[in-house]
């Protein structure tokens, strides 16, 4: 195991091309310098909007400067049909490094994998992986089981359509869920493929503390995957039973966020 990677010939010879990015921000009314800025990264198909629904305002209400970025090809960022995972990670690091102080990175779903890659490039104050989709064929297996016809095309590089029951619990009112589903797009084919092949993210730089949160009732991320990711970062997942995969949109969205912010406050990260 090498603990850091210095040689990045590909990034030197072929840097990720710039892209216009959407960043949504909620600023606390009373800025609190003891609290680090938090940057939220949405999963594949989601955009910064998913955090703008509840989490940004709530985090700002608790004194954290809260930002959400749409990686290229997502939300209102520039279209990027050929983007690779490294381009998404690049977008996250660009925004993080542009914040006035060392930031906490919070990634959800496949956005957690993007964050894990970003943690190898940027010494974050702390990392939070929410319902992390680290990919691999097991992810595909589970997705096929819960949503055969939505997922199948993804295995051949086509569009994935996620289902309501995969993302939300029954507690979320039907029209709201339908509205969210309509807004969900998809990542580039290339990135979907990379997710399946699942190259393990490199060791984070700067040894940040990493928290994994999830729900045992997630129909995208099996419990075993949560445990595996948490173990990789030396911990156990924090669980919120009864919720769907989309922790930031589901009916009980304040619970995981409060737990994350408590962890940040307690750890003095």
């Amino acid at each position, binding site marked *: 195991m090498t603990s850091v990677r*210095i040689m990045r010939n590909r990034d030197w010879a072929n840097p990720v091309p710039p892209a216009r990015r959407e960043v949504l921000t909620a600023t606390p009314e009373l800025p609190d310098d003891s609290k680090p800025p938090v940057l939220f990264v949405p999963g594949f198909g989601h955009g910064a909007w998913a955090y703008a629904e509840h989490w940004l305002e709530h985090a700002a209400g608790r004194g954290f400067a809260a930002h959400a970025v749409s990686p290229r090809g997502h939300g209102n960022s520039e279209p990027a049909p050929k983007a690779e995972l490294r381009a998404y990670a690049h977008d996250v690091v660009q925004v993080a490094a542009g914040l006035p102080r060392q930031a906490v990175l919070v990634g959800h779903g496949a956005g957690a994998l993007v964050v894990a890659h970003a943690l190898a490039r940027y010494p974050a104050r702390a990392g939070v992986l929410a319902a992390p989709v680290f990919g691999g064929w097991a992810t595909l297996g589970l997705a096929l089981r819960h949503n055969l016809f939505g997922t199948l095309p993804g295995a051949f590089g086509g569009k994935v359509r996620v289902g309501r029951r995969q993302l939300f619990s029954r507690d979320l009112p039907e029209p709201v869920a339908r509205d969210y589903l309509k807004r969900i797009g998809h990542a580039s084919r290339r990135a979907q493929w990379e997710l399946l092949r699942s190259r393990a993210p490199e060791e984070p730089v700067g040894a940040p503390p990493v928290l994994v949160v999830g729900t045992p009732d997630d129909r995208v991320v099996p419990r075993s995957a949560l445990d595996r990711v948490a173990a990789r970062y030396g911990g156990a997942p924090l669980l919120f039973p009864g919720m769907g995969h989309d922790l930031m949109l589901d009916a009980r969205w304040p619970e995981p966020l409060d737990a994350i912010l408590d962890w940040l406050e307690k750890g003095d990260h």
Partner: protein
Amino acid sequence: MSTANDSFDPSTTLWRDGRPVYDRRDTVCVVGAGASGLAAVKNLREHGFGVDCYERETSVGGAWNWRHDRSPIYANTHLISSKPFTQFPDFPMPDTWPDYPHHSQLLSYLERYAEHFDLNPHVWFGTEVVKVEPADDTSWDVTTRSAGGAGSERTHRYLAVVLANGHNWAPKQPAYEGLDEFRGQTMHASAYKDPKELRGRRVLVVGGGNTGCDIAVEAATSASQTWHSTRRGYWYLPKYLLGRPADQVNDQMQAARLPLGVRQWLAARTLRLTVGDQGRFGLPKPDHKVFETHPISNSQLMYHLGHGTITPVPDVRRFHRSAVELTDGRQVEPDLVVFATGYLPRFEFLAPEILGADEHGRPTLYLHAFPRTYPTLAVAGLLQPDSGLFPLVHWQTVLIARWLRLRDRDLARAAAFWSRASADVGKRWNRARVKDSTRHWFEVNHIDYLRALQSALDELSPATATAARSTR
């Protein structure tokens, strides 16, 4: 504004030569808050060390801080290394910046780096280091003085010292017969700031490094006449090749692990096809292969040679009252001569033998960073890379931090590492046979050097990585 030292405990006072020494125990001292010093502060802190950094100027940025009188930067300085080679690997420059940013952007980048990682509270500004001496164990006594010169001297004892004082401060001033009687103006490039100083004058620029080439180009559009004197032929690399930053194209070849000979041939071929025959412009043929001198990155020099707004001339033989005689016997009559002849590294606060200095005063170090016999002293940034400095100095300071951590945790492993590493003291990290010149002894190929850092880090890493985590 600093607070770091406020926690002094006077009861821990020691004495040296009748003066008090304030013990900073496990704190590491960093000299200089330029790019190298800031990277050292950040990476040492990331590895759990307390740090006191001393900077004689009143703000960060080092050479890139044009506000400081001593800065060698001139108004139109743009980077010679493109962004991927210039930025710190863990703090990228904004996507919206150009390939070759302006020097003012570099300063704002370093200021943001210091803000972002909260480094300023660890820096004592306006404080000059005047002496660094080994204490009786492996710690160091560092004597400082407020830079105005008014304050008295203070000595603190540190666990370790990282020297990041930069090497572009002391002008390398050439000596010529007859220079005293020359009636025109002469200056070293370090004092040159703005093309205004050249306007309407007859200017001779001496030296074919990047500074000499940049100033010759500035003179071409400001001065009434420009001569550019070089003592050998060079390979003038344009900033763009095949529509992309030339260093990125070069790295593509290095990534493919093409042997040096093949790369040299390819590069010479590409230059021949793009720039053409330099001889046509009146330039001497290079006396060396590509990559055997510090690369020049300048797209405008050839352009101005082609316009006749720069006249290339050979080396200076001697000065007369109102003329300069060249080695080909020609005489030119400039009213301003700019010596862009480079800089000399200086460690005035340190006994030369500590860094293993040779008869020319050049330190002999492992990885250009670690002296043979002083395990708790390191130099950061004493490198002349064929690309940007920051990535190299980032990993160099990570290595320094890990090395100090390992010494702290596991002396036996540290000793094993050092007994292997010390065989490489004085080794040069450059496959190319660089020209023997006053400036090339610390020229490194960035790939060769970074690979060496990678294997040293791998050797030090696993145990220290977990140790560092547990201290947080």
